[in-house]
């Protein structure tokens, strides 16, 4: 599904990712953990194609295609989704209108027919309900005036409607209380169908308690320094990231 090889990414000529290797197969859920400033969000933005996140070396293949050659909207149409750490407010743009326009733009790019409004509304209403979101949000402007938790849940609603092949979730758990965290985890698990893959970027272990990741990777100073199973997340929770320092000194 996703193959990252020796990925180097620079922002304003400052190298943030310094050779990341990571491979995610179909249906797998991987977690990336790491201290602040380790490059986690940079990885998310680089995958989604944000301007200014320059790939200076290495490669990213998504289903055999070179991501570096694709515009952000082409990546989306190919099935890549990034749930933003800080979802952007778009004043004046209606949430439902935006989501339907996005879905139809993706379908058009893939040569599929546009979705009719009945089926669209049905899909959105179902995911809103499962995330315990008020339907009135559909009529409001995108993320405008949403609470922090609502914004994060709205990202999961978008994911559920857009049905990506790979979802990159950038600290979707931050700022959520425990109830919202469970809802988000349920929203993610509901999308796990054995084919769809996930890359969950998080600072804490608590979201992973509900997600049972296939692999956990630790990112530090722009590199993956440890990979393992769920037990790695537990160890990080217990010991913090301090052991990374020790490891590098040893």
């Amino acid at each position, binding site marked *: 599904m996703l193959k990252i090889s020796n990925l180097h990414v620079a922002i304003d000529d400052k190298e943030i990712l310094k050779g990341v290797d990571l491979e995610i197969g179909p249906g797998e859920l991987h977690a990336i953990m790491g201290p602040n400033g380790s490059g986690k969000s940079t990885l998310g933005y680089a995958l989604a194609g944000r301007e200014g996140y320059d790939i200076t070396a290495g490669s990213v293949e998504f289903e055999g295609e070179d991501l570096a050659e694709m515009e952000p909207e082409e990546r989306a149409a190919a099935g890549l989704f990034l749930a933003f750490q800080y979802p952007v407010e*778009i004043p004046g743009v209606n949430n439902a209108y935006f989501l339907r326009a996005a879905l139809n733009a993706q379908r058009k790019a893939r040569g599929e027919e546009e979705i009719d409004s009945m089926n669209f509304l049905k899909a959105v209403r179902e995911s809103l309900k499962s995330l315990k979101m008020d339907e009135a949000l559909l009529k409001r402007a995108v993320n405008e005036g949403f609470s922090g938790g609502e914004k994060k849940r709205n990202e999961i609603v978008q994911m559920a409607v857009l049905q990506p092949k790979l979802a990159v979730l950038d600290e979707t758990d931050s700022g959520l209380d425990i109830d919202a965290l469970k809802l988000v985890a349920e929203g993610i698990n509901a999308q796990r169908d054995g084919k769809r893959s996930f890359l969950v970027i998080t600072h804490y272990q608590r979201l992973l308690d509900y997600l049972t990741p296939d692999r956990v990777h630790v990112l530090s100073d722009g590199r993956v320094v440890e990979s393992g199973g769920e037990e790695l997340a537990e160890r990080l929770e217990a010991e913090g990231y301090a052991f990374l320092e020790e490891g590098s000194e040893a």
Partner: protein
Amino acid sequence: MSAILEQLAPESTLADDRYADIRRRAHQRLMQHGFPDLKTEAWKYTSLKLLEKRELSTASGDVVASPEALPFSADVIRFDGGLVDEAPTNLPAGVRLEPIDPVELVNLDYGDRAGAMAWLNLARFEQAWKLVIESVLDRPLVLAMTLPEGFSASVHPRLKIEVASGAEAVLIEQQRDHGEGLVNIVQDIELQRGARLRHVISRRNAGSVWVQRTRVSVAADADYRCCALELAGRLVRQDLAVHLLEDGANGEIDGVAFVDSRQHVDWHTAIDHEVGHTNSRESFRILADGSGVGVFNGRIHIQRGADDSHSDLNTANLLLSENARINTKPELEIYAEEVTASHGATIGQLEDSALFYLRSRGLPVDQAMALLKFGFAAAPLEQAQPAAVREWLNADLHSVL
């Protein structure tokens, strides 16, 4: 600018009818003051020099120009080529259109050269109508002014609108220009005690120079609300002055203007709180693309003794290209006490983060930009009522973004 004077105001062509003395007096004043230039404060950013290059003929009444169809039911008064042949017979009950009594035009004063275009109108108007609304209208009343392709005349429509005590109306000015002439409109709108007027201006112009001066007076407990969608044109100048004359008068202006290359729009608004216990609110947005120029000057004047008045003025602007220009200026003059008056002005660009967010969801860059522009521009139109009119304005906005 004397060339404009020669071209536009040769005395010999002044019509000889019951308004002749009024036109002659206005003509003298115009010759005395001359036209504004860039040193005239109110015309600092808008030059009328373009008129010098134009060979403008005199307006004739034989222009036929069908207005665009409306997606809602309405009563329509057509001003083909800027003129009305005769008062329509199918007006709703409580609405009259009649010629203005010359007495009403005798003592008008438009000041010095800043008011030259209004003097010019008074010197050269072909017709002077009065629209009287005396009832609560159950559907919008539309003044459809259409200038067809090839239009190259100068026309000086003059209209007084009276909304009688207790009357209510949605009045829509549907103005469409496809020509290259001069349209120079003067309007006086009077809201009597307790009257309510929703004044919608929907203007989409091509090559004509369009100058419109609208003066609104609002009596006790009357409510004037303007909502404007200005889809530019070669040169547009709108002056809108709202005078809150008595206790409980309310005045609101919401507007959005979009300008692209070779387009220039200048909105000068003034809200004058002449007495206390009056309220006003204004929100105006400009989007400028290409080499377009947008100008907004919003003045709030709270006069001495107009205590307990409240006003809020906000202007937000979006620059969409390096060559576009926007000049925006909120002006607050407050001479009263126990007043709340707030104002804000911003000029910005489309946010990269918002653009990326939309693209990351699959929207192509053009579509994402259009959506962001629309989101910015649509805010003032949210005030438009009824909903069918709001949707009509939104659809028009969509079509240009």
